[in-house]
């Protein structure tokens, strides 16, 4: 009896000892798995999940969220192949909420809204709505995946190529370029964003910064050196300024975004109606198809001050 009782006490003592051992181990797990237990990271994950009842669904699915996201992704693929572009949105929304680390789903969601649905829309208001939606989705993607260069790059690219918000695009390209595994072209995109708006105050430091990166990649060094040399020789060349204004505003017209007016350009005035340059001080737009009055007086020949939706 005595032995049996002492064995029980021995077992209880051993259990207490083991329990004391494993509590700090769990604390260590909390520290090493920030995506599960770190309040800052958890908040980011939760803020990526915006719709009300969805967190409950995510909780109910427990460890099988990835599989549920995969099944919905397959459904989205079928919807895409069937041509129902608008029906993809709720599916992509669910996929990205179930698995905020599914990078391809975020990329497709942002691209689909900012490019496809934007192009499908007929009015300027709708176009801007879808462009904004695409950018907002990519911002959520960055929030949910702060350690991945791809999401910063995707957001930067959409801002650069589609919205022509070059300053913001440069900010995200730089963040992408600073993250591990970012390819060298991301570094070059950082200064490219400043080129088209001829922001020389930021362009030259960006070129120098790009030159200091990827020293071992000969192609990168060659391209950046070429661009640095080009801008050192042409930053005050009026014809280069004209070329950049034409390129940028033609692209903006195609994308139905407002023209960039180049307020500080010393050589050219930009026509608010057609977006093309005329020599500084011109009274009328040099574009024969436009003829907009640039200084004072009523407008002549201009159809609108912004690019049309079509």
């Amino acid at each position, binding site marked *: 009896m005595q032995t049996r009782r002492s064995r029980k006490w021995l077992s209880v003592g051993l259990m207490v000892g*083991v329990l004391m051992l494993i509590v700090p181990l769990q604390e260590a797990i909390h520290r090493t798995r920030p995506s599960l237990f770190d309040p800052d990271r958890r908040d980011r994950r939760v803020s990526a999940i915006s719709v009300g009842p969805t967190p409950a669904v995510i909780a109910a699915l427990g460890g*099988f969220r990835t599989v549920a996201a995969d099944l919905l992704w397959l459904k989205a693929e079928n919807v895409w192949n069937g041509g129902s572009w608008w029906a993809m949105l709720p599916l992509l929304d669910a996929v990205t909420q179930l698995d905020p*680390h599914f990078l391809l789903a975020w990329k497709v969601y942002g691209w689909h809204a900012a490019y496809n649905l934007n192009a499908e829309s007929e009015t300027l208001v709708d176009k801007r709505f879808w462009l904004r939606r695409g950018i907002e989705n990519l911002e959520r993607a960055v929030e949910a995946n702060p350690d991945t260069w791809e999401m910063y790059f995707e957001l930067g690219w959409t801002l650069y190529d589609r919205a022509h918000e070059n300053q913001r695009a440069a900010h995200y390209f730089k963040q992408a370029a600073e993250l591990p595994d970012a390819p060298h072209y991301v570094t070059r995109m950082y200064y490219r964003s400043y080129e088209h708006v001829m922001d020389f105050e930021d362009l030259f430091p960006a070129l120098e910064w790009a030159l200091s990166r990827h020293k071992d990649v000969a192609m990168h060094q060659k391209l950046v050196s070429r661009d640095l040399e080009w801008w050192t020789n042409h930053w005050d060349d009026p014809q280069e300024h004209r070329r950049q204004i034409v390129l940028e505003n033609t692209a903006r017209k195609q994308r139905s975004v407002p023209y960039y007016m180049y307020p500080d350009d010393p050589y050219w005035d930009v026509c608010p109606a057609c977006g093309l340059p005329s020599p500084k001080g011109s009274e009328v737009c040099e574009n024969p198809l436009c003829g907009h009055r640039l200084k004072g007086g009523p407008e002549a020949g201009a159809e609108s001050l912004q690019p049309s939706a079509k």
Partner: protein
Amino acid sequence: MNPGYARVLFVLGLIVVAGIIAVTRKAWAPGAFHALPSIWRIAKITVAEARRRRVLHAVVVLVVLILFSMTFFSYLSPQEQARMLISGGLAAITVFGILLAIFVGAFLIPQDVENRTVYAILAKPVRRFEYVLGKYVGALIILGAVVAVMTAVLVGVLAIQDHLVADLPESPFNPNLGGVIFAAVMSYCSLAVLTALIMLISTVASTTMTVVSAFIIWAVGSLQSQIYELAESATGATKLVLFVIYHVMPKLENFDFRHQVSNFISYSVYSGWTAVLHGMGYTLVVLILASIFFNDRQV
């Protein structure tokens, strides 16, 4: 918890365990030499019994078919195919592993009691804790074999698919074989913890009750981060109850690396090892309890 307190607690726990082992060495050393062969014999019998059950073979064949059928997603891009195969394959391993753990763990001891096999075993010089541990080791071997077969098939399917799409231009098919094996091993560790708890319940409850409780425990154990989050935001008695549930339930989510592996996110192997150590401690406590309860049970 403050990391300083955690370290103190860890060192104290080590001292307590080492002290108990050292002080009682005369008591356990001869017993241990006697116990190990008995445990091994019971484990071998358990495995032999399981091999006769056709349901185990059926489960393995089903999983193999599911894994091979997943190669039909060839219309997807290589990047998507890799993700689908990895997440689907690991989910299949986990689901069937959990089902096996529940049904193997829940039936091992009650079935022996029902068939009266346990009388024949306990009539021999086998102590009850040796019987419980033997059954547990047997269950671990069965689960290990099944998980190993399923993982080998998944790795094979990924390797074949990698070979098939290798010639496609710009195919970023990443089979992530190291990650897959790591996630499968971690999945097996979670099954080991779950099985121990199921065996503990089976020593005091009916089979139906054990199966139902096992599903609940698995669900709660897989949602520990949510429980922790709720406990942190709760107040008063609710906070206390939630923290008790959080600390008493097995931490199955600690072993879940499927999400990271499927999304090709880097994972901490150190975190895996810590989870294994934590799981071993938890399992030890659970098995001691199971032995105590089975000792007190009238068989």
